[in-house]
């Protein structure tokens, strides 16, 4: 089981954003036809809209998903760590984030400098969440504190991809 989180350790996702955990839920993430595997490259232009995500688990269980960038604004000086891109709560097991409650709308990557990691972390909830106060700012979010505040425990699934600025000839 430990070997399945090796890429997260090597990528310092475990350490920078979450603590060591044992994955217990399958989470499949795709941007268009590209399936996200740990450390793969995704162009910002491919990630403008929220990815398709499906999770395993039982329908009577509820899950919370966050997407963060710990390398904001740059990996060498991440003064905005973590920049929160998406928060969805109350996702029923076996479904997808569209079935949950969007707390903070999805914003695609737009890394100004360097290669940034974009990390999707899934937690299992102990109770329905419903409504939570929106973070005051998207910068300086803390996944560990957020999880502690909602008593979410350790993650049940995590995957991350890399993204960097595209040349200026891309069109919006």
């Amino acid at each position, binding site marked *: 089981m430990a070997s399945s989180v090796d890429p997260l350790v090597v990528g310092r996702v475990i350490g920078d954003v979450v603590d060591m955990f044992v994955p217990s839920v399958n989470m499949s993430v795709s941007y268009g036809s590209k399936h996200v595997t740990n450390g793969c490259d995704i162009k910002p232009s491919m990630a403008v809209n929220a990815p398709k995500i499906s999770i395993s688990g039982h329908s009577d269980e509820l899950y919370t998903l966050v997407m963060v960038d710990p390398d904001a604004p740059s990996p060498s000086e991440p003064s*905005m760590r973590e920049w929160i891109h998406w928060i969805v709560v109350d996702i029923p097991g076996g479904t997808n984030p569209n079935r949950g409650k969007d707390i903070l709308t999805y914003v695609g990557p737009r890394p100004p400098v360097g290669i940034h990691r974009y990390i999707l972390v899934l937690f299992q909830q102990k109770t329905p969440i419903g409504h939570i106060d929106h973070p005051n700012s*998207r910068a300086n979010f803390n996944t560990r504190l957020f999880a502690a505040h909602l008593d979410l425990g350790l993650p049940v699934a995590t995957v991350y991809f890399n993204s960097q600025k595209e040349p200026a000839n891309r069109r919006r």
Partner: protein
Amino acid sequence: MGLQISTSSSFILILILAVAVAVSPPAKADASLIQKACRATKYNDLCLSTLKSDPSSSRADPKGLVSIALAAALANATSVSSFLSSLALGSSGGAARDPALSRLLRDCADKYGLAGDALRASARDLAGEAYDYAYMHVMAAEDYPRACRDAFRRPPPGTAYPPELARREDGLKRICDVVLGIIDFLGS
């Protein structure tokens, strides 16, 4: 002798050109900057009318133009929130008598409030010259109205989406698109 004359003629020619350039009227950078910025947006006319309605735009630099457009977007989001609150209170009694519609309108007011928060965050990042982050906040602001519209559709068959709200949703989307275009122009 001939060489000396041609050298001093060249010198005088250069001197005349230099004086001509120095006294020529300054290029109308102000008007053409607004035009260039607005051409980079999806809604040129809306951009022009938005920027020109603020007198400071003629002296603004590109960052200042973004700031003016952001202020207009924020005013738009705020007015939609107010409109939703008035609908929810139901001056005609319609919404007040329908708890489901009332709840939808309150959810929507919440979403447009978040759009306003995002635009304020964008202005802060703009001031700090974190342009990519300013851009992302506007992307978020632009997406919240869709969440309001989606709420009307769920669960099927949903509730009729008021046309006055649809019009305002479109208005906020357009002004946000204008802001995004000018930020791209700023970065180019």
